């Protein structure tokens, strides 16, 4: 157990950028989701769950597929 903890402590400084990327993606995705007007509440909740629960994949899936639901934001 002590060894595991020691390894985690060793790795932690190197993992900080990974946490920052994940948090940045999460925050940007949630801000975008709640700013959008053309999504009904049920869809919004489902996307929020996807964004929060699926780690880095959730926000990426939302940005690629979820944003297309708003007819105003055409890419």
């Amino acid at each position, binding site marked *: 157990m002590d*060894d595991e903890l020691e*390894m985690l402590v060793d790795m932690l400084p190197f993992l900080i950028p*990974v946490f920052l*990327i994940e948090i*940045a*993606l999460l925050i940007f995705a949630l801000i975008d989701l709640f700013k959008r007007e053309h999504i009904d509440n049920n869809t919004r909740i489902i996307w929020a769950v996807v964004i929060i629960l699926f780690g880095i994949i959730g926000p990426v899936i939302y*940005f690629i597929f979820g944003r*297309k639901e708003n007819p105003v934001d055409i*890419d």
Partner: protein
Amino acid sequence: MKGLAPLLKKELKEQFKTYRWLIVGGIFLLFGITTPLMFKYLPEILEFAGEQLTIIEIPPPTAVQSLSEYASTIGQIGILVAVLVAMGSIANELRHGTAIMTMSKPVSRLAFVSAKFIAMSLTFLGSMVLASIFCFAYTVWLIESADIQAFIGLNLLLGLFLVFCLAITLLFSSFFKSSLAAGGLALAVIVAQAGLAVLPRFGDYMPGKLLGWGNNLLTGNGESYWWALAITIGVICFCIYFAQRTLKHKDL
């Protein structure tokens, strides 16, 4: 190319508005950071996974292993990201009718396509540079020193391959109003050429060979594939030219 500068400015803004820089940058950076970490801590991770696994002898990681694993991951994930990001770039504009609004202004079709291509390529290359810096720094820091010139060469080839994937996807995106159709076909073509790239002789001319060449640079042996490089650049130019030609003959 009439109107390239304002269109490019608009497309670069669009990269931020649609969070493409965040998607591509985030994914690339994630692999750039985690690959050397995985190599460094793999024996410990396996050891904690279960006692029966400790009998597996894992040789100490090398810088070449870490950097080439990073390149291989970016090569595979990069294809998917390139297709996903570029598949709707023209198709969505055709479907929603915004392409005709842009084209009604004094801009050429070539400028319209080129602006999208350049903006997306810059997003990809910028993300790759950032991820590569992290990967190289972590590798040197955690494992051992590595040949920076070979790694730069590897990244140039990898970058060109990803730009090729973007160009192919952009071409198919100009054919269809459905982004999924464009993405599916682009992916099929990219996978098919990757399959052909493993063939002896004929494979030496495929863009997929650039990844093998990059790996050869790292290991310091093996061949160079200049023909694959020339053909990749040719295919990129062909894709851009035909994408704008398709738009010219399309009933927008």
